[in-house]
């Protein structure tokens, strides 16, 4: 079980968090202008690397902040953990 250093709450167990998926893609600013291909790519196709991965975690049972976490998917080592909203 991961121990995630929440910038507000300190080191907290993974069970307090909800996983929020890949943080490496950005929502197109104008979805209406996106082609079907570009939109489907944004919706469905995400990298699944073995190694460093930037992802969202929600401190659901804590400060209810969305965090952007760098996690190595192979070793579970965590890198930088910061608020998604600066």
């Amino acid at each position, binding site marked *: 079980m991961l121990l995630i250093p929440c910038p507000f709450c300190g080191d907290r167990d993974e069970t307090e968090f909800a996983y*929020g998926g890949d*943080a490496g893609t950005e929502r197109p600013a104008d979805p209406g202008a996106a082609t079907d291909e570009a939109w489907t790519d944004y919706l469905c196709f995400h990298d699944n690397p073995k190694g460093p991965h930037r992802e969202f975690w929600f401190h659901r049972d804590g400060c*209810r902040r969305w965090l952007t976490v760098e996690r190595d998917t192979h*070793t579970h080592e965590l890198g930088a953990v910061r608020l*998604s*909203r600066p």
Partner: protein
Amino acid sequence: MRRQPFRAAEGGHLIDRSEPLRFDFDGHRQEGYRGDSLASGLLAAGVRIVARSFKYHRPRGVWGFGSEEPGAMVATGVREEVRPNLKATEIELADGLMAFGQNAWPSVAWDLGAAVGMAGNVLPAGFYYKTFMWPPRWWLALYEPVLRRMAGFGPAPSAPDGAFYAKRRMHADVLVAGGGPAGVAAALAAARAGAKVVLADENVRFGGGLLRAPGEIGESDGLAWIDAAIGELEAMANVRLLRRATVTGYYDHNLLLVAERAGGDAAPGTPETRLWFVRAREAVIAAGAHERPLLFAGNDRPGVMSASAAGGYAHAYGVLAGQRAVIAGNNDSIYAVARLLRGAGVSIAAVADARAESGARDLPCRPGRTVERALGSRRVRGALLRRTDGRAGDRSERIACDLVAVAGGWSPAVHLHTQARGSLSYDEERGLVLPDRPGGANRSAGAAAGRFDLDGCLAEGWAAGVAAAAASGHERPAGEPPRSPDRVAGDAPVFWRIGAGKQFVDLQYDVTAADVELAAREGYRSVEHVKRYTALGMGTDQGKTSGMAGLVLLSEAIGRPVARTGTTTFRPPYTPVPMAAMAAGLIGEGRDALRRTAADDWHEARGAVFTAAGLWRRPSYYPREGMDEEEAISAEVREVRAGVGIVDVGTLGKVDVQGRDAAAFLDLVYANRISTLKAGRGRYGLMLREDGRVFDDGVVMRLGENHFYLTTTTAQHHAAMQHMEFLLQTVWPELEVYATDVSEHWFAAALAGPGSRALLGEVAPGLDVSDEAFPMMAVRAATVAGLSALVFRMSYSGELSYEIAAPADHGLALWTRLLTAGREHGLTPYGTEAMGVMRIEKGHVTHAEADGRTTPDDLGLGRMVNAGRRSIGRRSLDLPALCRKGRQQLVGLAVIDPEARIPPGCQVAERDDMRPAAPLGHVTSFCYSPTLGRAIALALVENGRSRIGQTVYVASPVTGLAMAAEIVPPVFYDAEGTRLRG
């Protein structure tokens, strides 16, 4: 005969001879002492056959001393409360204990299955892959029933485990796994440095190897030093000692799982097993080592056992594992064991040292020799000794004995180290698999790291404690590491087998040396494959004693160095953890918090039948005298439609949204436009997921220019809240919006029915309830029944209806005052069932229809989608897959036979013959409609809207029922909505 013929006259530091205990094994009354294990009690009583083996049903005795025990598998308790697959070495004797040996019928001493042992050649390695296959029809009739009776392990209990199990969480600076000399030294150093220390050991007493054999620390006896150190630790506020507590798992980010068993003397209310989840900054792995067997024919016979265990029974329990012993091994430990046994009263017949150069004058030594074969069938009656250098012409020496104590060297317990992703190295010269680079914040010390001398263990343990304390931010402790005169390393050359015959590697799963070689001949190369093919190391002991022997045999058979063969993966748990302990807190009452609405007391007093809605409980219906469930629900529906009813909707999610950009934000969150709402008005709102599927629905009320109050469904309340917070914090952080979950702050009840206006007018005299002053979808702040409230005029039932929300603290007062005032109006409380019937009659969707696959258009809500193209999910609606023809669409189904009732899980079929065919769709919601006088349903049907008027079949292949139904528009009742105006 004496009750305990094999108990020495004195000695045994774990037992209390003043307290004899009676216990029962395989139906025979036996006697032991307080402090005995079941294994020591059985040995003292002279019981040698404790269980039968898995495959051949060969007799099995006690081989080891603790959790490494491979053979002595027993069950305790009786019948429905039986506890199977326990190790006799780990069971503490208690007065009245009932235990049985496993895999035997009628008893371990006389076992019919042993006949299979004679026919053992039909069960070679991997037999389950190649025998009993043909003819196939014999499998169910013959093979399976017979094999099930014969094969593996204890009976399962049929009744729920009545004992109490618990879980606890703990944080520590340093967790020390193992309380032998190294572990205690580590704990002492870290604790003196000020670190918060947890020291866990699986035995009843701290001491590790010193429990089995005497040693000297400082100027005193080793155990006395341990006791003094434990006393010092016990008095420190920063230390927690866990006895009978096995560190069973090492997980990510230094989370360690410790399974603590209740002792025989535990206070009432102590959990049978308590699972500790310890988050430790640093861990010290001082888990010790396991003694290895020697491979020779008959090495599984009761009476062949680990030498250190044989010594341990004498030292710890004053129990003689035999009267006349042959001791064989490949390292110096055999001499100490021989002297220990001799001192306790065992006659030493021979000490066979596989190494040519060793010897001791005071013992009957046989240097350069080892056991070639253990004699006897049900128990050991002698041993054949033979030269290890294989010189020709040498004759075996036959020695009578009833105990063969074997010392094949030690395997460090690297399990926790590797669970933490640490790497291993193989020391060719010493024949040891050793921890190499650690994979977490941990360090191994003592025997677990390959140090077998007492002085080295103490020094290494102390150093590990100092380092762990430093790494967790503490200063160096005062004092020096304890010392011991025992500095003999005790390394063993690799020596495994001699002679031929049935040489067992895995005593629990009956894997022989020949089985491993057969696997190699059949082409297996990977140690993981050989493990699965032969079942080597797959028993409850997980090959603690046998793993190394199997590894060496395989390497020799395939001609590859041991270092390249590698070990199998060590996975948690290190020792078996009861399922009941893992399930603690996850089953039964108390698993979830029970949420009750503010009016719950009233519902309960009224005798409501409750239903679960997430964590909430809600009244399903209110039973009535002389009516069954359907009649009571139908009565509630009729009374609402004809008069006035009230329903508790306090479980809906409620969100308060404020801020300069609140309206703009809600336009992005909902698929329909919210910003055009005027203050004081509300609108039905539809939320989509980004992929265009309907996510949730509810009502949005505009209380002010920048102030909204919105509801979510009960089911999606948390998900919807999380969704909005995600959007605000990651997608549009520039918006100034504050979304606050106020679900706990507000209670709500809905008045519904043509009589609701008159009742509301009466309880809210200051509120103009006329249709002109308080139109549909308007919101008003008002005093209702003397309480401040918000009143929304909206409808879910299809009748004129008002939803009244009051602060939760006033919820019960609001509810009871409304019911009191409603008495003269015939106010009927109704539950979720009647609410569901009325919403199906009106064709409103819930999550049964918005099931994560349906778009607004599928549900007939396509017209609602008018938000801007930036809003969530809007873009996806234009993707070809979501616009194509042939999608399932929401329709109504009116069952033609008025007496028919729809069972759950129905398909919509074109025919009623139940022949397999792709269904047109499926029923999503169904009920008996008292308003229409027949069963009705909502369904998702392929091209449903174009099929209106067709007759189809509602089919339940499971129950064999099919009934004709007409496809109709999903709104069954008052399609024009005239009743909403009242």
